Every structure is written in C-alpha cells, then in structure tokens.
C-alpha cells in the first residue's frame, strides 16, 4: 500500500441506491494531478488505481499495455478516456471493471481492493455495483430485449414480476419499450446498444463502464446513445467512465483523460480543453 490515507467515516458498505446528485459542474478540481475529494462535498473517490500495470505475455513477447496508471474517479463524474488505438484504454476498462487481473498495482472500487475479493464477492460487485457497455454490445442472442435486461436482476434476486416492471421502465428510458420482445438480431446496432445500456442499469449500479459505446454506430445513433448516457449521469448520478474515440464525447464529459502507451498523457477538465474544428488540441494522432 502507499501512504495514501484511506478514507474513514464513510459507510463500509456501499449504499444500495445511488444518491441523487446534481453534478453538472465539477467543483474545483486541480488537474491534471489526482485530486483529493472536494471538502464537504458528497463526492468521494469511487475508483482509484495505484500504479496499475498490465502486461500481456504471449510466448516470449511481452506487451506492456498499462505502465503504471494512477487515477482517481469520483462519484457522479463522467470521464472520457481517449487515446490512440492500442494505447491501453480497453485494458484500463477491463482492470477497473474487475474483468481481468492486473499484473501490478491495485484497483480500489469504493475503497475495496478488487484483488482481495473472492469469486462470489466479485460476482456481487459485477452484478450490483458496475454496469458494462461494450463496443460489440454483447447481448445474449437467444434472449429478447426484456429478458436481456432482466437477466442481471435475476442474479440479484429480484422477483420476476418486479424485474419485468423495472425492465420495461428501463426499456422505456432508452426508448425501446415497444420492442421489448425483439431478439438482438432483429434490432439495429443503436437499438442493441440501447438495450445494453438498459441492461447495464438493471441493478442500479453506481458505475457505468463503457468501452467505445459508439464505436460500432453511425453518427446519429451514436449521438442518441451518448445522450442517454449523459442523461443517466445527470439524473441518476451514475459515475460514467467511457473509453472512446468519439470527439462528441467532449461535449458531455466532466473530465478527459488521455492515455498513450499505457501512461496517462494528460488529464483535464472539459472547460480546459479547447476544441478546434476537426482537431482536439493536445491530441496528435
């Protein structure tokens, strides 16, 4: 462990539901250095990585995808992670979501060291605390939209009737109420991604992790998806971490994180970033 002070006075247990917050404008955040929580605010660090490293070993070739990432993400934040292809965005996403194990460093989710969790605890974490959205949607092909949305609820122990009602609410939220009985192959990419968002929200997670949610979508549907994400962030206070190449993300996020070659290249609040036409400053790709 580092000498970083572990927060006290917080619930040892994560609250079941997220508290509604209004965090359109982040409070004074010294960027780019990792920021301590703003004093007095209801914000706390929900994801913290310390010297996070990941090396993929294939035969004798070692690819260092992450080379020591220190990050802190607060509740209610919308963070966009950008960087050239192969820079390690997806790898970061997987580490933070507990979907893969790092080769060095630590990941804390709500002050809990993910590496210390048992399989059951990890499943609990994935089920209730985090929602995942993938570039390839990863819907279960043989289930209808509604079944896809209610499957994680079943894992959380929600009764079928309640799951159905809540599933329909979520589908309504993403504008697919009328299509609840459709299978993934019967839907467009944008619709599938919206179902995936509804599914990710099934157990009211605190964190939504998105890996290029608009990567497979055209401009218009991509915008729809981004707007839903922003809405969730604003209205429900869900922390959103979004790896992306999509420049429109800049309009929505609170903070931006650039990764290059497995290191943080830059960390900035949105208002610090100037957008020039067709080019975002500081990103030279």
């Amino acid at each position, binding site marked *: 462990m580092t000498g970083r002070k*572990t927060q006290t006075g917080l619930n040892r247990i*994560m609250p079941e539901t997220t508290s509604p917050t209004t965090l359109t404008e982040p409070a004074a955040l010294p960027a780019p250095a990792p920021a301590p929580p703003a004093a007095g605010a209801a914000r706390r660090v929900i994801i913290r990585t310390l010297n996070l490293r990941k090396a993929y070993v294939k035969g004798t070739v070692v690819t260092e995808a992450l080379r020591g990432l220190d990050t802190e993400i607060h509740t209610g934040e919308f963070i966009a992670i950008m960087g050239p292809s192969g820079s390690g965005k997806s790898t970061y996403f997987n580490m933070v979501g507990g979907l*893969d194990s790092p080769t060095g460093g630590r990941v804390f989710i709500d002050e809990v060291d993910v590496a210390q969790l048992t399989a059951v605890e990890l*499943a609990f974490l*994935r089920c209730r605390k985090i929602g995942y959205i993938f570039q390839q949607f990863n819907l279960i092909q043989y289930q209808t939209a509604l079944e896809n949305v209610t499957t*994680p609820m079943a*894992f*959380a122990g929600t009764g079928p009737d309640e799951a159905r009602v809540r599933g329909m609410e979520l589908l309504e939220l993403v504008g697919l109420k009328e299509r609840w009985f459709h299978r993934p192959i019967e839907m467009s990419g944008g619709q599938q991604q919206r179902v995936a968002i509804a599914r990710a929200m099934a157990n009211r997670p605190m964190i939504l992790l998105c890996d290029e949610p608009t990567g497979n979508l055209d401009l218009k549907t991509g915008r729809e998806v981004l707007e839903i994400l922003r809405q969730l962030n604003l209205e429900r206070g869900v922390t959103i971490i979004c790896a992306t190449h999509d420049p429109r993300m800049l309009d929505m996020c609170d903070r931006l994180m650039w990764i290059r070659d497995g290191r943080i290249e830059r960390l900035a609040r949105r208002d610090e970033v100037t957008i020039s036409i067709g080019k975002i400053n500081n990103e030279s790709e």
Partner: protein
Amino acid sequence: MKTIDVKPQPKLSLARTVQVTLNGIRYRMFRSAVTMAVIAVAVAFLMNVMCEAVTFRAVGRAAIQRAAELQLADRWAARLSGVGSLEVVLEDVAAASGQPGLAEEMTRFGGLNAADFPEFQRRCGLAREFTVFLDQVGFARRRVLVGETAGAAALARLSRPGEFAKFAAAVKAMRTVRLPAADEAMADLTRTWPETEARLRRILAERNRAAVVVAGALQGRTPAAALAGARGPFGAAVADAGFSSFTPDLRARVAAQADDALLARRIEDLVQQPDLRKIMAGILDVMPRDVNARVLWEAMAGRAAAEKLVERMREKNCLPEGATAARIMGLARLRQEQQDWNEALRLTRETVSGGGFLGIGPRMTWLVLVSLLVCAVGITNAMLMSVTERFREIATLKCLGALDGFIMCLFLLEAALLGLAGGLVGGLAGSVVGFGRMAFQFGGLLWVAFPVGPWLISGLLAILAGMLLAAVAGVYPSYLAARLAPMEAMRIE
C-alpha cells in the same frame, strides 16, 4: 481496509434455469440439432452393437434349450437303447433342476443321499461347462492343454497328480483363454473328479439296467417306435423300471415327438419308391434322382405341395395312417425350425457360455467397449464445438454477475437435455438397425427369443452413456471458461 458486504446470491429456480436453457437450445436450433444428431448417431452405434450382442446371447440360449426339447424323443430312445456316455449323463445331471422327477431319479441311480445331490449337481454343472469350454477353445490349444483327450477323459487326465498345475500354467500363458470358473474351483473340480466320475458311471450302469427291464415291454419294437405309444402302458412300464422322471406330462410330449418322427420316416421311405418318386419329382419340379429328404421337406412347407402329395398317396393307396396335409406341413415346418435353431446354435456358439459384460462374452464385450470409445469421441467433439463457440456468452453472463455455479448448471442442463434427446433417438434408431439386422440373420427365431430385459437394460445404459459423455464433454470446457476472468474467456475464440 474496507470490505464488501456481500449478500449471498440467490439461487435461480430450476424452472427458470431450464427455461433459459430451453430458450438457448431453441434459438440455436440448427446447432443443437446437429449436436443432438451426432450424439444420436454415436448412441445408435453403441446401441446397435449392444442389441446384436444381447440378441446373440438370447438366441443362443434359446437354441440350446429348444434343441434339447426337439431332441426329447431321440434322447429317450437312446437312453432306453442302453447307449449312453458319461458326457450325456453329465449333461442330464446338470440340467436336472428344470425337470420334475429327474433329480430324484439321479439321486437314486447314483446311490446318493438327497442332501448330497445339490453339491453333486453343482460339480457336474461345472464339469459340463468345462467340457463346453474345451470344445470351444480350438483344436490346437486343446492339444496343448489336455492332449488328445476330450470331455470326461480330459477331466480324468487332469485329476492325475500334477496335471492340473501344468494345465493352469498353460491356460495362464495363453492369456486370452478364460476358464469357466476361478482356478481354485477348477482345481477342486479336478481333484474330486474320480469320485464324481464313479457316481456318473453308476448312474449310467443303473440306467442301462433299467433299460434292460424296459426292453421286456418293447414287444419287438425299436425304442423309438415304442415311444410313440408312451401315453399308454409302455410309458408306465418305463417309469416303473426306475425312470421316475418319465412323468405323464413328459410321456405325452415324447409320444407326440416320436409319432411325428415315425411319420416323417414313413413318408421319406415312401417317397423313395420309384413311382412315388416320379410323382414327387413332378410336384417338386426336379429330376427324379434329385428327390431327397431335404428338397421334400422344403417343398412340404407349402400347403399346395402337401395337399398334392396327400392326394397322390391316397390315389396310390399308400397314405400312412394319420397323415394329413396339415400335419405334413407341420412336420416340414418343425424340421425347418429345427434347422434354423441348429444354424443359430452354430452362429452363437461363442457368445453363449462367455462371461463378460451383460453376459455377452469377451469378444462382444470388446466390441461394445470399442463402440463406446467411438461414441465418446463423437460426442466429445460435438459438445466441445458447441461450447467453445459460446465462451463470449459465458463471459457476458459473468459480467452480469452470474456465479460460476449458475453457468455450470446452465451447461450441464443443456448437455443433459441434448444427451437425453440424442440418446433416446439414437437408442431407438440403434435398436431398429440392430434388431433389423438380427431379424435378417435369425428370422422368426429372434421374436421367439427376443431379449426384452437385456434390451431395455442396454437401452438405458446407452442413453446414460450418451448423457454422461455429453455432460462431461460439455461441462468441462465450460467449467474452464467459467473459472477464467471474463475478459480472458472472451479472448479464447
């Protein structure tokens, strides 16, 4: 350090899990059907071999029994003529439990106590199995094992000091040869053989003495002819002479058979006469010199030919007493049946006396094991293919918070369902093919000796094997995938 407050994940109800599984199967209908078909083919193959194995065994046993039944009159004729050997007596003693009165008769003839008879019979049973074993082991091997001897003589040879040890060593050296019983039991059999043999000789002698008494009642007939009248005083005379197993019920059967045999002989003789021979040639549509018993009886199985023969014989005034077209047809059919049983006996010789799985003999057991292996490879391949292409789904489920146990449950259920469906279809198909082939081989005999019990057991075993193999082959890779971190599972493709 913070901890996470984990509520135990509720177990999904079985109904829900089954529903999810069925949804999956239905969605991947084509894939599932192919997997199921592979399982079905594998199980069918196994079932086919098992069906043939159990049929061989059942038909073989029925053939032995039926052959004995059909030779009832012949055996009694031989017994009453005073021809008999130790082997025949051995066989009779071994079969004594099935027939009322025979045990008592043997006990009396052998001068045994009633209490000693079961042990005596057990020994004789084993001795008989041993002689059958010697018959089947093949000439070259038999020479090595017991020299030029066979049957009772071989046993006598082995009972000499030191011979059995040599014999046992030779058997061991042959490896593939299996004795009908354990070494100790065999050693015991040969050691006590002189005593057993003495008893058998005594039974033989007593029988011959009784046969001499019966000879007084023959009134110039041969025993075979006299037995046709066994329902009357002759039968009683036989029983009175000491053959207490010659019960009235048995007398009726023997008499009927003897009667049939006599009639058959009469007809065969008649047909050899020149004029009838010519007529027969006309009926049978062959050259007169080709008329013989075989073609005669083959033709007589048809009603038209039998009726024609009776008509001609009546014209010639040489119709034997009691001969009708129906009866002649019956004789012909019986003869055919007898030939069929003999053929079956020859075909099944190897499988009847073997031990092995389900009692189908070592050779068939080997075949079954090989087909089980083929079955295993086929099913494993099919299941592996259908599971490995679903690693992404496993990873997704894990992202949604599924426990490894639930995923296992899903795949176990699916494999079991596919295994069951494939097993049922395959079991049925294998039975149809297997018994179809057997019906082709044994004809009507199959239905007479149909092995219902063994068939059901093998069906159950084949289906179980299908399900088990599908479960193991389907669940093991999914277990490996479920244990991995989701992203690692997603990467395997």
